[in-house]
């Protein structure tokens, strides 16, 4: 049993000039835990995600990450080289738009293999086999390994992006609206895939979404954001089934029932 969290966020605040991006956010993320950050556009959820994942620099606050040696490190006190290494080995980042997370003009195999090559793998055959195996795990046929993602459908691209991120066995994956631009049926397939990968690999994940159904399906715990503040948080089904805050009640009651 893991007695220590993987990530500790303390009083994270981000201002854009005088405007609040997110304000005084603190939480811990535990191994194997999936946290959903929900809220409408402009609520600060993507700002929060980018600040935690070091894609933006917070105005104040700290983010501590438990490295593989068990030591907690403040991400903003790390050297850039170390931080970038962490990002491409122990972390994943799944963008809403796959084109932001993929190299559209190189093959699927090279997209998946890039992280391996970045950490020093130098055996073409092994890299290609690993890439092919990962394509299989995200339900892309092995015979597409040499095709470029620009020839892929939106759902396939998103699955490829996931494979590209997971190939180094990261412990923490950030996802920004991972099902954002997809058709409903494609969404369902992707969600199920993400869910089972997260379960099988014991990943921790922070998922930003405005879609409460996504949050319900993927996350253990959720935080509701409004105007830069976390207004409610707790067990996902508790927040969705017994929302306390006026805004959360509004959100939950706004879900379309099918």
């Amino acid at each position, binding site marked *: 049993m893991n007695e220590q969290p993987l990530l500790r966020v303390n009083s994270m605040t981000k201002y854009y000039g005088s405007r609040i991006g997110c304000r005084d956010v603190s939480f811990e993320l535990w191994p194997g835990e999936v946290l959903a950050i929900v809220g409408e556009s402009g609520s600060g959820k993507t700002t929060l995600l980018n600040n935690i994942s070091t894609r933006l620099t917070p105005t104040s606050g700290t983010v501590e990450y438990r490295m593989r040696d068990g030591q907690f490190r403040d991400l903003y006190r790390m050297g850039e080289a170390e931080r970038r290494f962490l990002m491409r080995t122990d972390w994943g980042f799944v963008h809403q738009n796959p084109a932001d997370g993929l190299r559209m003009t190189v093959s699927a195999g090279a997209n998946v293999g890039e992280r391996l090559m970045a950490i020093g793998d130098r055996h073409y055959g092994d890299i290609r086999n690993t890439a092919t195996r990962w394509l299989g795990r995200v339900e892309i046929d092995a015979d597409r390994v040499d095709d470029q993602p620009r020839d892929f459908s939106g759902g396939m691209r998103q699955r490829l992006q996931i494979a590209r991120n997971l190939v180094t066995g990261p412990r923490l994956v950030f996802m920004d609206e991972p099902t954002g631009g997809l058709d409903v049926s494609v969404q369902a397939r992707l969600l199920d895939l993400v869910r089972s990968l997260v379960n099988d690999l014991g990943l921790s994940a922070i998922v930003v979404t405005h879609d409460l159904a996504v949050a319900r399906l993927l996350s253990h715990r959720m935080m509701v954001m409004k105007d830069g503040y976390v207004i409610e948080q*707790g067990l996902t089904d*508790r927040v969705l089934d*017994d929302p306390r805050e006026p805004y959360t*009640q509004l959100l939950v009651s706004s879900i379309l029932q099918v």
Partner: protein
Amino acid sequence: MPTPLVVSEVAKSFVMHLRDGIKLPVVENVNFSVAAGECAVLGGPSGIGKSSILKMLYGNYGVDAGQILITHNDVTVDIAGADPRTVLNIRRDVIGYVSQFLRTVPRVAAVDVVAEPLLARGIKSDVARTRAIELLEKLNLPEHLWQLPPTTFSGGEQQRVNIARGFITNHPLLLLDEPTASLDAENRAVVVQLIREKKASGTALLGIFHDQDVRSAVADRIIDVSMFRAGREAA
């Protein structure tokens, strides 16, 4: 052995912010306990708060006041104040729950839906699936459905998957929210049998059964929820 479930002075209300913040009291001063090997049944008319009580016990609803004490890893834990991670661990290890409706996940086969609580406890996949199939067989779910996702199943079929999922583990405490509502007589009898087996093995069960026959077949005791109706003393 400690009492598996002690509920003490629990109160619950809903504040409806979308309706001008009106407060809807549900229950208050809920006091009862369930012993090992016992099947207690929450009784009273509908709308009295029976389901709400089960949901509070499962951590699904927040609790305004009071304590819900269970034992987890030999430690007494108050679910009313437990953090999400503790609640999840308790669900994995201590409290099983058969809800009224199955929440289906796209593309996951019935047998895997049933096996999942065992997998979560670290039991090997083939063992868990064998156990899942035994239960589905017992509940007369046609074999050709086992490998299909329950999304398209009938209400009764989904409910049997749900029951199998709830009964597959050896959780010391099992919450049952109308598990037999959409079942035929034959399958109701199976559920009664399953409940008896659970009792015999020392599980504490707390249930809601509208079906009179089932209730009298399994209940050791009825807890009258109307006793806990909010504002009763004031009225």
